[in-house]
């Protein structure tokens, strides 16, 4: 398994998902040989015949840490169409099963300097406490995933928000290292596709960790 470079991640992020949280991809190496496999969250790549059982025994962030860092082995990456995809149905089901919502995920710890974003239709978002913390059980997303959201309506769709009003207020959270967190993928709901990364801070964040909001266009 390989942790893709930021450049490779950017390439994949501009291509459609095969299912929620994963893409079946073909990478062309610099010697023009190709490798097919599955990429999770546009950042973790397994070759098609490589065992992915580690995903069942370790949490996703742990797997990411274990993965070999790519040295930029692909000169191009493309998402395969379903008809091209070599992955079996059972493997595809396993991939989908991995993309579970945050509330079902184990509690982990945040890393140093991780940044999170939260979208709200309310400027006075009530999850933000007067001491600049997020209260217990607050949902947010990763800074990386939030880059997919340009408008308040984008946020409603990507995070399957129950409130259909454009979530035009974007808050930024910088929790201290080792803050409790659960990570997952947003399920479709409220007639919205979901598919974004969601996190929950089950015990909230400490004081002075949240800033904002910044306002983004409604649509």
């Amino acid at each position: 398994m390989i942790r893709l470079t930021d450049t490779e991640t950017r390439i994949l992020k501009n291509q459609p998902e095969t299912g929620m949280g994963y893409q079946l991809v073909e990478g062309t190496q610099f010697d023009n040989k190709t490798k097919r496999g599955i990429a999770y969250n546009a950042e973790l790549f397994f070759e098609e015949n490589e065992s992915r059982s580690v995903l069942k025994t370790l949490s996703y962030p742990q797997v990411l840490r274990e993965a070999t860092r790519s040295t930029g082995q692909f000169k191009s990456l493309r998402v395969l169409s379903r008809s091209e995809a070599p992955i079996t149905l059972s493997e595809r089901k396993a991939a989908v099963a991995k993309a579970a919502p945050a509330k079902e995920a184990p509690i982990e710890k945040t890393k140093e300097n991780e940044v999170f974003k939260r979208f709200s239709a309310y400027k006075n978002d009530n999850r933000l406490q007067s001491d600049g913390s997020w209260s217990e059980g607050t949902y947010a997303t990763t800074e990386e995933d939030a880059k997919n959201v340009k408008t308040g309506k984008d946020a409603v769709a990507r995070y399957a928000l129950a409130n259909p009003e454009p979530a035009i207020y974007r808050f930024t959270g910088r929790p201290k290292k080792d803050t409790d967190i659960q990570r997952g993928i947003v399920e479709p709901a409220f007639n919205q596709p979901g598919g974004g990364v969601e996190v929950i801070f089950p015990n909230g964040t400490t004081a002075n960790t949240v800033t904002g909001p910044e306002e983004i266009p409604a649509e």
Partner: protein
Amino acid sequence: MRIKLTQRWIDLLRKQPESGMGYQRVDVRFADGRHVDDAMVFNAEDLDVPDEFSKTEIEDVRLHAS
């Protein structure tokens, strides 16, 4: 329709976990004895309930046990 909750309920809900980004599922009991289960509250302040409850005083709000 959406009812604006009083500060008492806002203060209560804002300290409790969300059900998803920006909303909570709650069970509401009204002063006239009626109740609505699994209603939605946005931003801990806007309660979504049928129109018939618009002028009824709220007796209790609790997170819906899912």
